[in-house]
């Protein structure tokens, strides 16, 4: 345990304590992601159990667009690189550069969503709708929930970029970055399960 800073907000103004040595915002983010892991875990395990019980779903899985899913995986992995660079900027107290790197991340996130949108519309016009079978219901639900996390990440990163640009609240770059890494990692699990396992 690191040295305790024991001044309180009451007695001597604003002081943040951190008995663990981990800033509270990062600690809270880890707890949040712990909960998120279980949400995606529940979905994905349900899907896998269904897949084991229904060999015929493999037939359906043939129609997922592997190339597009792969391109999207590359896009998210690239965006991770920029989040890492933004974090490095923040540690050097270079808020402007951090903001720039975050906005590149946001742009890549938007590209992911646009591509995903094209993929959906293509599938729906080919008759592969959410009603077609339970496989497709899982497909839309899992990618949809993942996509909504991308949307939340984009909003959070944009807000963080605004303060970071002014050099304020730089610790938020790391907190938002952890979240973004998590969302990207989920795609790296979703992608093989829905696109590669034919």
């Amino acid at each position, binding site marked *: 345990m690191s040295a305790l800073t024991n001044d309180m907000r009451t007695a001597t103004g604003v002081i943040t304590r951190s008995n663990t040595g981990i800033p509270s915002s990062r600690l809270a983010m880890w707890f949040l992601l712990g909960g998120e892991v*279980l*949400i995606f875990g529940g979905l994905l395990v349900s899907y896998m159990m269904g897949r084991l019980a229904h060999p015929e779903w493999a037939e359906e899985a043939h129609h997922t667009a592997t190339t597009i899913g792969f391109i999207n995986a590359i896009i998210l992995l690239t965006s991770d690189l920029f989040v890492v660079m933004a974090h490095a900027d923040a540690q050097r107290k270079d808020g402007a550069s951090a903001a720039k790197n975050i906005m590149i991340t946001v742009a890549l996130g938007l590209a992911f969503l646009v591509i995903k949108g094209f993929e959906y519309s293509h599938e729906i016009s080919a008759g592969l709708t959410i009603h077609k079978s339970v496989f497709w219901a899982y497909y839309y639900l899992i990618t949809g929930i993942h996509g909504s996390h991308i949307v939340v990440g984009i909003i959070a990163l944009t807000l963080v970029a605004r303060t970071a640009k002014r050099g304020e609240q730089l610790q938020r770059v790391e907190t938002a970055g952890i979240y973004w890494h998590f969302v990207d990692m989920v795609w790296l699990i979703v992608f093989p399960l829905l696109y590669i396992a034919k």
Partner: protein
Amino acid sequence: MGSSHHEPTFTEKYIFPLDHKNIGLQYLLTAMFMACVGGFLAYVFRMKLAWADAPVPLVGDVDGGLYNSMVTMHGTVMIFWVAMPTLIAAFGNFLIPLMIGADDMAFPRLNRLSYQIFLLSAIILIASFFVPGGSASGAWTFYPPLNSSKIVDGVVEMHNGGVYWGGNLWILAVALEFASFLLGGINFMTTTLNLRTKGMGLFQMPMSLWMINIASLVFALSVGPLVAGAIMMLSDRMVGTGFFNPELGGDPVLFQHLFWFFGHPEVYVVLLPALGFFADIIPVFARKPFFGYRIVVYFTLFLGALSFIVWAHHQFQAGIDPRMANYFTITTIIISIPFGVMLFALILSLYGGSIRFTVPMLWAISGVAEFLVGGITGIHLGTSASDIYFHDNYFVVAHFHYTLFPATFFGAFAAITFWFPKWFGRHLNEGLGKLHWMLTVVFFNGIFIPLFITGLNGQHRRIYDYKAWDEMNTPAQHNLNVIATICLLGLLATQLVFLLNFFRSWASGPKATANPYNATTLEWAAASPPPHGNFDKVLTVYRGPHEYSVPGAKEDFSPQWIQ
């Protein structure tokens, strides 16, 4: 978050407070209101069970649909809108900063948001009674296909587009409640880990804090799969997918797994804080340290871990693989070991003490005793062979009320009567408190002992009128049901004594000093009631939380904050 601690205005204090104590108070009052709602629902269906042919006073005729709606909402309200907000949110908020010597939570604004989400969820739940088709009525466990089909919530005409509002609002309300408690729990755990004052190591913390935090962690880690299940359920109901619909290639038992993966840990989420309160209250009135502090902490962690691998004991009758049933029988029975340790520790904490039967102490001791009945009957249910008979009959109902009622109400009353002087700066009336305690204990047992018997005789828990079953429609069964219902009426009336005592003492009870019980934990170092910001100086902790009757000490209590 401001550095200056000006005294808050009325709006800042009661409507949109940031102070953890006032947010706790909001949770407490909301939960008290919801407890009245939940109690009223129990009144409706118990009246029906005792006198099936008579209209229920204040309500009128109760048909099967209304009966199901009452039972469903009773379970939902009591677990999610009474037990959790009282034990975890209200007392978690009030106690955590005070007991660790902090001035507030790590994230006060997140804390306020958690309450607001919770309040919204309560409003939505109440509103669901008044939508076309009525509230959800497929049991608090919300099993498909019953709950994913249109019959259960009535109003078939609304099916165009698939909208059955009662059930949908139920899912929405529960989802918001989960979000609120997830955020709240993250705040609690972060606060406890990071804001402890100098010298307050984890093993210097009062048991309440261990228990509230372990409960928060177990909740955060178990709720995810049910969130996934709720989204799938909503999609089945509103979009028409078939995740849980065998006709469309789905699997209804999957939902049961997702539900109980959460549902079983959830019952410990409710139980643990209450055991924590008992463990902190008993030493104060036995003037003796809590027995086996570290061992109990370790076994509670073990219990928390085990709670994730026992869930299918709720599904022995759902057609699961018998080999799987064996596995879940074994893990379930192993659970009795940590429970045994915890209960023996609580009992041994009394041994050789100089016991004072104050009101909180009475609640704590009787809470342990009643809970024992629930734990022991759990073993009969956890064994798949005997559960094949017991499943879904009143034996199960009596079992879980002997666990949840002591946890929720004995736990809450112990905590409220114990910390009332700190929270409101005034004392409750001891005589009214004892009367309330005595009548509650008598009526509680009067309700549920008969139900053990009707359950043993085979009475099924989901039938509202037994006239169609000759072997159930006997005078003996009927009399037991009437006894249970009369005791329920007594129990509800008794709570008026509590409400009177609570509000009267809040307004005009005798003033309390900072440390009226000569207790040792940090909350008693603050004034009663603690001002905004809690303490007038930074505290340092020198010893463990339950140092009573230390040999060689001048007094029979050695506070944590005095060297």
